[in-house]
């Protein structure tokens, strides 16, 4: 069983210090990701999903007040490593990331081929020629013409730049790639193209993905399983099939109902109110204030209960 699990996150906590108090961006997160699988972390902006990615990859800003929990990668707790060991052994080599708006974060004065090759030189110890060969291999995987190796970022379209960013995350052959909103700034056809590329990589290279997004419709393009995040906590984890068919948590149900659909006829709805402040999250269930199924027990923190292999943090199911 354990060798099927690639990543296991347990009680991960990441709080930031601000002048008003601690922001509880990630507040006790648990989830697992199997080999060759993709998990989607769904949630509204400000729910802590990008912070979760940063916590897993240990890309932390300076104002961290609490950072704890366990992150098992292939059974090894990488939280025990020092920052330097983590940098040398884990980041890039075993896990890499395509940050949000990656296509706009390419270096404008460096050829994209050199940029993609650079992590190989630093982390895999290849020389420049080998690294460029590796980069051109990755360009083929993501469908970028090879003569683009010698171009600059401004000469490429948005979709091509996004592919280059994905190629860069692939080049050190990691086991896991974290994608933060990989398609949110792109056109529909380009989005579909990028997801085709990701599906191809997943089946050909056997890479696992954590996909962070608020776009439920496109998230279903890659998801094997889904984790719904609300106010710093994961409120539901489920396999994709049952989630998209019938979500359990009232928040997930509302989220699904808010998706405008191209096919089918149900009128989309919206969630009234706003997510709570992460400075002073409410005691008890954090969604209770906006929940239509609220009852008296919701003032206490709900336990995580199992429903046929799906996990849900809601009093309705316990």
């Amino acid at each position, binding site marked *: 069983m354990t060798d099927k699990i690639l990543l296991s996150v347990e009680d991960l906590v990441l709080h930031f210090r601000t002048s008003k108090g601690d922001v509880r961006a990630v507040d006790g997160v648990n989830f697992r990701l199997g080999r060759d699988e993709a998990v989607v972390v769904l949630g*509204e*902006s400000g729910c802590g999903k990008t912070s979760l990615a940063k916590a897993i990859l240990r890309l932390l800003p300076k104002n961290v007040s609490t950072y704890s929990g366990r992150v098992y990668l292939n059974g090894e707790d990488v939280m025990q490593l020092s920052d330097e060991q983590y940098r040398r052994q884990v980041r890039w080599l075993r896990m890499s990331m395509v940050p949000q708006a990656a296509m706009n974060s390419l270096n404008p004065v460096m050829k994209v081929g050199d940029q993609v090759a650079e992590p190989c030189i630093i982390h895999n110890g290849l020389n420049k020629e080998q690294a460029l060969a590796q980069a051109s291999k990755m360009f083929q995987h993501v469908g970028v013409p090879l003569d683009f190796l010698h171009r600059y970022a401004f000469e490429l379209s948005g979709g091509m730049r996004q592919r280059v960013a994905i190629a860069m995350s692939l080049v050190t052959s990691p086991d896991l790639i974290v994608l933060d909103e990989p398609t949110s700034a792109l056109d529909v056809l380009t989005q579909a193209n990028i997801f085709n590329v990701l599906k191809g990589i997943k089946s050909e290279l056997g890479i696992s993905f954590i996909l962070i997004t608020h776009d439920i*419709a496109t998230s279903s393009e890659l998801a094997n399983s889904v984790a719904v995040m609300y106010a710093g906590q994961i409120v539901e984890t489920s396999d994709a099939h049952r989630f998209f068919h019938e979500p359990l948590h009232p928040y997930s149900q509302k989220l699904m109902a*808010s*998706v*405008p659909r191209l096919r089918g006829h149900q009128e989309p709805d*919206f969630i009234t109110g706003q997510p709570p402040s992460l400075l002073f999250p409410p005691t008890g269930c954090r969604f209770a204030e906006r929940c239509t199924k609220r009852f008296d027990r919701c003032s206490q923190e709900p336990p995580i209960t199992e429903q046929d292999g799906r996990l849900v943090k809601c009093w309705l199911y316990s």
Partner: protein
Amino acid sequence: MAEQNVIGKAQNGGLAMDREIADDVLLSVQNLRVWFELRRFGFGHAGYVRAVDGVDFDLHYGKTIAIVGESGCGKSSLMKTILGLNTPTKGDIYFGGDQLTAQRGENLRIYRSKIGFVQQDPYGALAPFMSIQRILEEPLIVNGIKSKEERVRRINKVMGEVKMSPPEDFLQKFPHMLSGGQQQRIVIARAMLLEPKLIVADEPVSMLDASVRVEILKLLRGLQEEHNLAFIYITHDLSTVRYFSERVFVMYAGQAVEKSRIEDLIRNPNHPYTLALLAATSDPDADNATRFRDVPPGEPPSLVKPPKGCRFHPRCAQMIAGLCNEQEPPHFETEPDHLVACWLYK
């Protein structure tokens, strides 16, 4: 090379119209072309960017038309021309009887004040150093409403209309203190201030969270019903069009390739480009992860030298050699009120 707007001249001779405008038409866009001249070293002519190249439609009072297309298809240039910010190169726009190219100076300012504009990125559209009160007062001051009481009355009215009440809670705040949805409401309130008959909304929900999108669309629809507002809804996302608009036209490389009612477009899409757009739009379904989507190869063409004939032909799987790559397709009517510019339907 620098871009410069070609000084507009209506080539159709002053007030002569291409076609008659019915009484219930608010906005009539007639064979509109917006070209930007490319200059070499500041003076030498180096061609044109044909951002809008022959667009033709009528918008009736209180109705919505959705313009769907990818970035670079010319929808923003079309929008800016309707707003009176670009000058048409050819063709003209009639708005409530006013001819755009005949407007100069003060008249042009009045023309602009009659159309509301909702921008894509609410945070970018609101000046960060101004309070909400200042932001909303500015258009009223510019448009000559001198009495402070009148301005406050109008501001309170629109704040109520966009459901930001009580207004006092928000007016002294700055844009960064509001959530994305609230910022977009302020942008909508600002567009409503001068009581326009038409609002141009450029991707009003694409920067917002899924849970807020529907709320904003419903708000816009409510305003439309209450004030008999006409809307131009610009987007690349076909799934939201259904909930907001009756008519849609699909733009590709500066031209409208398909025009119809939205139900007809989804039920019976004609143009290969429309088919590709529909096929690429996902609904939440776990089976999506197991199949690849059909996407036409290549990218939209350069608008400086668009392909000869149909502009979609280099990417089209059903291209008819000798026809599609030679002659520009006219609009064929495939069913009532459903036009498509494609040789497959001749």
